[in-house]
């Protein structure tokens, strides 16, 4: 029973850690499925986090914070879109630029306004997303096994968490069951064919980049308005790159993306849990080993030793109309 309780605690914390990954990973999925590689997720998480934190501080409204976060990331997405789609730039270079500008700009402006080394003030509870308790949580919580699962893994999360879980089936449905999704996937595989059918490659890719901006923005907003309650420079802490790893690991598919992000979040929670703990037989596990595991797993997968990760065929390739 004790083991079960510990499992629930670690799983719940893993789930919380997985939410920003899930959102950023879905964002990357939309973008890359349309043929626009986005390594700027990391920077855009920061932009969303900062803009939402700053707006919520000024207005005291969680909704305006959310709106500002999403608007700012979409704006950054458009820069990447303009470079990648209209300027036919190297998308890796553009993404790198986005990461650098975002990293510097958020810290710079935060420091210039609040003079706390880039930190924004702590938000009051009214300017944060509150945890939502499901009906009869205490009554059901008393039931063994089912109770704790209901109380700690289903109830008690905030709006963005539930939204993240809903966005996975929504993405799956939109990509695989709608005309728009079919075209979007086609544009990532063979833009010339889509163009020949009289559909605008440019419009589709801009649509994908916009959706990417909204989703990755939500990831940043979550960090500030749901998790930490203030913005701190560099607070994305590599989440954008882990999401990128998860995207590769999931082979650019929504459901496996969810599973991979939960796995990576869970690994993170285990790493925190095992800090300084001495296990029987193994001894103490270096935290760094578990932290590096997502990256190592992704490299091993990419190398083709466990399955094969094949990206959308036209991803990273600017589309040039034949003249």
């Amino acid at each position, binding site marked *: 029973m004790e083991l079960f309780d510990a499992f629930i605690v670690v799983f719940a914390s893993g789930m919380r850690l997985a939410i920003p990954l899930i959102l950023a990973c879905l964002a990357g999925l939309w973008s890359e499925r349309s043929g626009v590689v986005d*390594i700027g997720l990391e920077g855009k998480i920061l932009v969303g986090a900062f803009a939402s934190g700053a707006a919520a501080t000024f207005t005291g409204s969680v909704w305006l914070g959310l709106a500002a976060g999403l608007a700012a990331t979409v704006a950054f997405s458009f*820069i990447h879109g303009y*470079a990648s789609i209209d*300027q*036919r*730039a*190297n998308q*890796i*270079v*553009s993404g*790198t*630029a*986005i*990461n*650098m*500008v*975002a*990293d*510097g*700009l958020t*810290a*710079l*402006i935060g*420091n*210039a306004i609040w*003079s706390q*080394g*880039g930190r924004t003030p702590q938000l009051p509870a009214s300017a944060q997303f509150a945890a939502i308790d499901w009906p009869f949580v205490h009554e059901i919580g008393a039931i063994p096994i089912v109770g704790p699962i209901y109380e700690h893994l289903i109830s008690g999360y905030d709006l963005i968490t539930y939204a993240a879980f809903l966005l996975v089936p929504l993405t799956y449905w939109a990509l695989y069951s709608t005309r728009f999704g079919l075209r979007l996937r086609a544009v990532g595989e063979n833009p010339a064919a889509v163009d020949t059918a009289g559909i605008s490659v440019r419009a589709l890719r801009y649509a994908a980049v916009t959706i990417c901006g909204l989703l990755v923005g939500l990831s940043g907003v979550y960090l500030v308005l749901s998790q930490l309650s203030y913005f701190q*420079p560099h607070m994305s802490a*590599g989440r954008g*790159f882990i999401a*990128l*790893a998860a995207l*590769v690991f999931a082979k650019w598919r929504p459901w496996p993306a969810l599973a991979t992000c939960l796995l990576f979040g869970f690994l993170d929670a285990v790493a925190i849990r095992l800090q300084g703990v001495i296990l029987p037989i193994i001894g103490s596990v*270096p935290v*760094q*080993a578990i*932290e*590096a595991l997502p*990256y*190592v797993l*992704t*490299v091993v997968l*990419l*190398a*083709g030793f466990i399955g094969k*990760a094949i*990206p959308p065929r036209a991803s990273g390739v600017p589309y040039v*109309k034949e*003249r």
Partner: protein
Amino acid sequence: MSAPLKPLPAWADVAVIPLVNVAAAFVISGFVVLAIGENPLEAVQILITGALGNLEGIGFTLYYATSFIFTGLAVAVCFHANLFNIGVEGQAYIAGLGAALAALYLGFLPGYSLVVIAVIAAALFGAAFAAIPGYLQAYRDSHIVITTIMFNYIASAIMGYLLVDVLRVPGQMNAETQAFPETGRIPQFHEVLAAFGVQWPVTPFNLSFLLALATAFGVWLLIWRTRLGYEIRTVGANPVAAIYGGISPARVTIIATVLSGAIAGGLAVNVILGEEHRLILEYTAGFGFVGIAVALMGRAHPVGIILASILFGVLYQGGAELAFDKPKISRDMIVVIQGLVVLFAGALEHMFRRPVATLLARRVAHPPI
């Protein structure tokens, strides 16, 4: 669609376009400074005075520039093979381990042979760490961008573990190794000049600078004057043509990444052997990423890279002074400038091509009398 562009004259391509791009980055940076309520012209003045106003500032500027020459060259070598090595940061970090292990455990070596071995160890460690993504790109078809990003984090985890749990001096708070013996250090310029009776303020500027210049010359020789360089450029321009010409792209890919990793080791030489004299946690401080900006700004040519490195040296040293004088303009401003340089000199490099071409065409059409 608009008409295809006429090719620009060579001088405009080499000089005007890059200058316009970099100028755009700086103009926008100026607006950012304005937006946070400071005077950009005053900021530039403080920055330049801080970086070049006295010998001490110049020493620090050139010390930073040395680091950037190494990381910029490392990125550039891969650029020529059309490979994007984002992993210079991690490769330099691991190279620091090589330098430190040699300097700490080979202390029995006579005289300055120790520091030479330490430099070689740095290059070897950097090269070995770059070789894995290189091999995976060449033979396992895994994209070098993704693998090198992953390897940056893997390097960070390895070094975090080693510095916190293994190499740390027992009882020390800071995650760093012991100080290196005197013979495992690269002489700093003020020491060298003092030997000749010349006074120079104490700065971290050290003899690695000469190694950086030599490496830049070596890269120029390699890329434009050797068969291997020709092969690298051919694979970069057109791998299919390279195969037709009897060049193995896989072999060239591995060689380019290994060379890149070895050159990245120069950062360890400058910072670890030249200034810190011990290995410290996260010593690379993002300088590997500055290399991307430097390589793009210098258009992957050693001369351009040296000039861009000095500019970034000025920004880093002057930026520190600026942050001291104007706390609102923190050192994050430099990262913003760096990002804007990558954006305009890299991603949007062709944005000003049409306006410049139009302008030049008009000038030719209506010659001034």
